[in-house]
Each structure stands twice: as structure tokens, then as C-alpha cells.
């Protein structure tokens, strides 16, 4: 492979790479605003100017192709002078908005101004005034003054979202970004521009002013919006999820995620409708009860039925661990009635990320062999062959209101649910299930990629320190007397744990203490997940063997 020298270091590169890419691969950071690895090169911010020997002038590292024997200096006095000059130039019209700007703390301009700028402005005239609160689209506010015209958002909407909605208007220091006449910036991927905006010009309406970035903790997880399973980070303050951002994974979602996944998959976690503690139906009313009593009553009432009169509903919203333990439990009591529903929104799919299948783990269910379709269950209940139903994290009534008719025919309904919904109204016993943000587990996406989720929110049984959860500065130093530490903790447990607890009243063979133990058990018994464990899956996941994939 050819070599170039960057700051005295020999760096190998592939032909066709630019200087900035070669430097990045070698771990040398060249400041840049407009360059983004997934977008075309525009070269308009000029902050990546570097000195290249035998070239008459400084060149921008983002568009200069690396060639054999090139000698690059990224920290020479000439380079630094140029960089400081460019920073000073960009900052001429940039408002001193950091105190009110959401980007502060993760702002490239702020970082580079700190590292490379001269520290004070020589500009004595009045700064340009532009519009501060432009509603570019339904989800995005644009602050024209803060914009440094790097064109990343324009290139993103052209090249990645394929929507061609944004453009520059005017010239020179009056330049601003706007949508084409009559257009609104409303494609399904708009909020990615907030992430890639190097300054705070584009802000997320939903997250605007909710929190400063340094006050939150972030936890690596997986989006549950569809079967793509985009890798995400969950941002939490005071035990409340405030935003989701995509996390780079070239095998799945690259740098991006869709707006629906970003905005609509976390609000139920801290919603009013969350189920907090167990409920039992007494005299027609659902009454709050404790765990021991509820488990006792559940096991007694389940034992009143013959094993083929009990049916189970698995869930593609639940993790592999949950479904595996449910399946084992069904086997323990000799029931073969295990079903699952499909959640397919026909037509809601594109070539970018969004998939028709709106569940994160339907492929995982196929791996576990839970394939019976829920419509068979409908007939079984209708014919009174099934008298007791055990539903895990599935809303049958929400799926189809027809279910209301047959649910009333059942003698016993046990529901494991995160939130109150149409099905929980009919339940005789409700167990509070932990949401995806409150448990360890694995999902398998439509490509057959096994990916891990981690708890970001503490429940009553989870402790941030003892369970190794990520902590913000507030979480580290807070006491129970501080109001910023008194966020709501729900009394909920992961579904697999609830079922394992219930099993202790039956055969007591499902003695799992951690999600990891469950997963190890799955990988022992399942061909598709052979030799996998949580450490192997890691942060980016593992794609299962393609031969096994074909079989499933």
C-alpha cells in the first residue's frame, strides 16, 4: 500500500483516499466542519487547510487526494495561522449564543474556537442579523444567525434522504438556508441534520431546551421502531429519557435513524400510563397487589386448568431472553399453544432504513421457532378450546379490536405489560414488565444481526451503581435528598424474570438470575446463536451465519 507522511508519521492509505481520511485512519484529527465521511465533498469551510510540501499554497485536506510520498504538516505554524484566520473569519458573524444554544457542549465550532482561535475578535462593526426561529419543517427549528454555511444538511437531504428540499439563498454574508418554495422540510430523516450540524443552527423541536448535554448520561441501545434495529444512544437525566440519537454502525444504520424511531419510541417509558406494580382483579376491579401474593394467585389459578387449555402469546417487541423463557415455561407445563402476532404496516418501507415490520425482534421469534400465527389462537378461544391466556408484552386489542369479543370468553387472562392498553382492561392479573430501556437483552434484526440492549433507566430493582449502569454527573454525586435525584422509578421487572419467578411455583427449573445466563442457555440449545455471548455481541452486534439464516 502507498504511504504518506503526516506530521512525521508514516501512514498507509488506499488509493482514492483523501488526506483527511488517511489522517483519520491513523488517528490524527484534522479540524473540519463541512467534511462528513458519508457525504460528498464540498470543501467550503476551509478549516481543514494543511501544509503539503512542494505545493505552492496550503490545501484543504478533505478534497486533496493522498498520493505516494506526500508530506503533510497539520501543526506547522503556517497551518495554524491559516486555521486561526479561518476560525476568525467564520466567527465574524456568529452570534455569542452559546448560553442559549442547545449544541453547546457538543459543538464543533465551540471546540475548535477553544483549541485554535485567537480568543478575541478584531471585528468592531455590527454583526449581521438574520432570522432566529425559522420553522424549517414540522420537527426542526432553524437559527439562521448561527449557521456557518457548511451545507452538510443540504447534502444530507439530497444524498442520503433523497428529498432535495433544502438550498442556500442569497450570497456572501447574507447567505442562508431555506426550503424550496412551497416545500416543507418534512422527509422522514430530517432530524439527522440536527446531529450532523456542526453548530446549533438546526435544533430538534422535541428536545429544544430540555437539557444541557453534559447533564445527561448516555447508554448504547437499539431502536425498537422497526425491524432495522438502528443502533442508538439513550440520553437520560433524572431517570427520564430525554432524547435518542443514532450511533454509528456501518452494518445496520451507518450514522442515521428515522424521525419516527427517534421521537416515538421512548415516550411511553416515562408516560402516565405505565403500569407500576402488580394488579389483581378482585370483585371486578383491578387492585394493586404485592409480588408474592400475585405470583401465588397466578400459580394457583393456572393450575386449575388442563395444560392444553392454556395458551401463551409471545411478543416480537420482547427480547430473545423473554421469549425463550416463555417458551420454556410453556413446555414445562406441557402446553404447545404458543403464538405470536405480526405487526406489518404494508407500504411503509424505503430503501434507506425504514422497514414494514414494526417490531424489533420478529426474526428472533423465528429463530426460537415461535411461528404459530395468532389467528389460530382466535379460533381456539372462540371454540372454547383455550380457557386461559398468558400474554407477554402484546396488545391484542390494539392490534385488532375484534379481539375484544373473544377475550371476554376466557376464564383467566394474565398480562405482562409495560403500559395500560386495550388488553390490560380485560386482564385478571397484570404484571409490570420492564421496557426496553430498563433491561438487558438481545434483539435480532431483519438481517439476522444479534444486537444488545442495556438498561438506561433504573427500576426499583435496578441500582445505577450496583448494576453497572451509565451515570451522569448528577447520578454520581446525588443523594436521596436532592430533588434532581428523585426521578420516578417504576416497580417493574423484565418479562423473563417474572416468568422465572412464576416457575418457582411450578417445576422450578428456570433458575435464571441474569439475562446473560438466559442468553447463554439459548446459545447452548440453538444452532443459530451458537458460540455467541454478550461479550462477543458487544456494542455493534454480530450477524448470524448465513446458512442458518437461510434455513430460518
Amino acid at each position, binding site marked *: 500500500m502507498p504511504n504518506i507522511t503526516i506530521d512525521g508519521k508514516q501512514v498507509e492509505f488506499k488509493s482514492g483516499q483523501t488526506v483527511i481520511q488517511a489522517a483519520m485512519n491513523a488517528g490524527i484529527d484534522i479540524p473540519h466542519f463541512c467534511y462528513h465521511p458519508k457525504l460528498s465533498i464540498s470543501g467550503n469551510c476551509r478549516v481543514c487547510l494543511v501544509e503539503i510540501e512542494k505545493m505552492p499554497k496550503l490545501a484543504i485536506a478533505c478534497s486533496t487526494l493522498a498520493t505516494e510520498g506526500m508530506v503533510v504538516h497539520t501543526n506547522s505554524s503556517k497551518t495554524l495561522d491559516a486555521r486561526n484566520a479561518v476560525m476568525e473569519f467564520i466567527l465574524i458573524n456568529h452570534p455569542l449564543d*452559546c*448560553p*442559549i444554544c442547545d449544541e*453547546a457542549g457538543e459543538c464543533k465550532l465551540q471546540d475548535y474556537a477553544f483549541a485554535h482561535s485567537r480568543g478575541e475578535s478584531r471585528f468592531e462593526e455590527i454583526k449581521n442579523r438574520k432570522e*432566529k*426561529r425559522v420553522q424549517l419543517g414540522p420537527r426542526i427549528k432553524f437559527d439562521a444567525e448561527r449557521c456557518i454555511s457548511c451545507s452538510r444538511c443540504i447534502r444530507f437531504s439530497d444524498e442520503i434522504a433523497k428529498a432535495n428540499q433544502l438550498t442556500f439563498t442569497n450570497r456572501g454574508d447574507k447567505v442562508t438556508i431555506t426550503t424550496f418554495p412551497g416545500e416543507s422540510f418534512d422527509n422522514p430523516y430530517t432530524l439527522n441534520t440536527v446531529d450532523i450540524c456542526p453548530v446549533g443552527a438546526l435544533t430538534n423541536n422535541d428536545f*429544544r*431546551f*430540555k*437539557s*444541557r448535554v*453534559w*447533564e445527561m448520561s448516555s447508554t448504547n441501545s437499539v431502536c425498537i421502531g422497526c425491524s432495522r434495529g438502528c443502533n442508538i444512544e439513550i440520553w437520560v437525566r433524572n431517570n427520564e429519557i430525554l432524547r435518542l440519537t443514532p450511533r454509528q454502525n456501518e452494518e445496520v444504520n451507518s450514522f442515521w435513524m428515522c424521525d419516527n424511531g427517534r421521537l416515538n419510541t421512548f415516550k411511553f417509558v416515562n408516560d402516565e400510563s405505565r403500569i407500576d406494580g402488580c394488579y389483581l382483579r378482585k370483585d371486578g376491579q383491578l387492585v394493586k397487589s404485592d409480588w408474592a401474593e400475585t405470583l401465588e394467585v397466578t400459580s394457583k389459578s393456572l393450575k386449575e386448568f388442563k395444560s392444553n387449555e392454556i395458551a401463551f402469546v409471545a411478543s416480537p417487541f420482547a427480547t430473545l431472553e423473554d421469549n425463550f423463557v416463555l417458551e420454556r415455561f410453556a413446555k414445562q407445563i406441557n402446553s404447545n399453544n404458543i403464538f405470536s402476532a405480526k405487526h406489518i404496516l404494508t407500504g411503509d418501507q424505503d430503501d434507506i432504513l425504514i422497514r414494514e415490520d414494526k417490531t424489533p425482534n420478529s426474526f428472533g421469534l423465528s429463530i426460537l421457532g415461535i411461528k404459530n400465527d395468532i389467528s389460530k389462537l382466535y379460533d381456539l378461544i372462540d371454540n372454547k378450546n383455550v380457557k386461559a391466556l398468558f400474554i407477554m408484552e402484546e396488545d391484542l386489542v390494539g392490534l385488532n379490536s375484534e379481539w375484544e369479543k373473544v377475550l371476554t370468553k376466557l376464564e383467566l387472562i394474565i398480562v405482562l405489560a409495560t403500559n395500560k392498553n386495550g388488553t390490560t382492561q380485560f386482564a385478571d392479573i397484570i404484571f409490570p414488565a420492564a421496557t426496553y430501556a430498563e433491561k438487558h437483552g438481545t434483539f435480532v434484526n431483519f438481517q439476522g444481526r444479534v444486537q444488545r440492549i442495556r438498561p438506561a433507566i433504573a427500576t426499583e430493582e435496578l441500582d445505577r451503581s450496583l448494576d453497572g449502569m451509565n451515570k451522569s*454527573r*448528577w447520578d454520581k*454525586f*446525588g443523594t436521596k*435528598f*436532592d*430533588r*434532581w435525584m428523585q426521578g420516578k422509578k417504576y416497580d417493574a421487572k423484565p418479562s423473563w424474570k417474572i416468568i422465572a419467578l412464576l416457575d418457582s411455583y411450578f417445576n422450578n427449573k428456570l433458575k435464571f438470575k441474569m439475562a446473560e445466563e438466559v442468553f447463554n442457555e439459548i446459545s447452548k440449545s440453538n444452532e443459530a446463536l451458537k458460540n455467541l455471548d454478550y461479550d462477543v455481541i458487544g456494542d455493534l452486534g454480530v450477524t448470524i451465519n448465513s446458512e442458518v439464516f437461510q434455513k430460518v
Partner: protein
Amino acid sequence: MATKKRLKDLTFLEKLYIPVILKGLVLTLKTMFKPKVTMEYPEVKFEPPASYRGRPVLVQEKNGVERCVACGLCSRVCPALAIEVQAAETELEKERYPEKFEINMLRCIFCGFCEEVCPEEAIVMSKDYELVFQDRDSAIFGKDKLLIPVEQLQDRIDFLRKFKK
């Protein structure tokens, strides 16, 4: 071993103690006719100088709006984690205001870092040193207790402009 001899034994007069007592009484008598340096505190209040760091307060502009834009820097710099800020959006030109601003006076150590870091001169140390509370909850001061009209704080603001770089 020989006992160690004292450097100087007391003289006869010193052993009597009376001259020393008289000397003390003379000093007391002299002081009685000098001007007083103590202050009869609850009746007479101490008016501290502008450099005094009393409890931190928020500056309220003449139109009744707080100067604070809820940037959260005071909260970040506070070594005792006494300050909690929740921002929200306002129609005013400043865009952002503190929906909630709480200082836990049990945590506050009166270091003045919040005042030093504030980019808007919105939180300043007042001359208020009388802080009494009987339970933890009343020790957490919200915006109702923190907002003080700018006229009452002019002294400190002038001091800051003179000395703060």
C-alpha cells in the same frame, strides 16, 4: 538525674498576684471610656461591603423578567452541586428562560463561582447573610426567593464590573 532548673522563678511581687490584677483592672477601666467596636446584632444590622459574598440571588430586570437564560453554567461549575436549572422556551428575544431555578442552601458554600461563570451577570452574591430554615425542603430556594430587583443589587454589579475580568 538532676531536676531541670526553671529559667526564671517568680519574684515575691509576682507571687502575690495583686499588681497583675490591678494592671488588668486599669486596662478594663481605660477601655470603658473608648468608643465601642461591637455591634448589638439583631437590633443593629451589619451592612456588608460590596465585596461581601452573601447568598446567591437572581437579578430581576426593571420589567420584572429575570436576566437568566438558563444556560446551566452555574449549575455545572458549582462545586457543591447546589444549583438545579430547568430551561424552557419564551417568546421574548432571549429565547430561553429558567422554568425552574433552585439553589439548595444546605449545599451552597458561598464560593461565588456561579457569579463568576455567569455570562449574563444574572446571578450575583447578595449581602444577605441571614439564612434560617427548619427543614430540608425550606432550605431549597426557588425563583420566588431568588429573584431580587436589579436596583437592590446595583452595588454588587458595580463592584463586579470594576474587578471581574
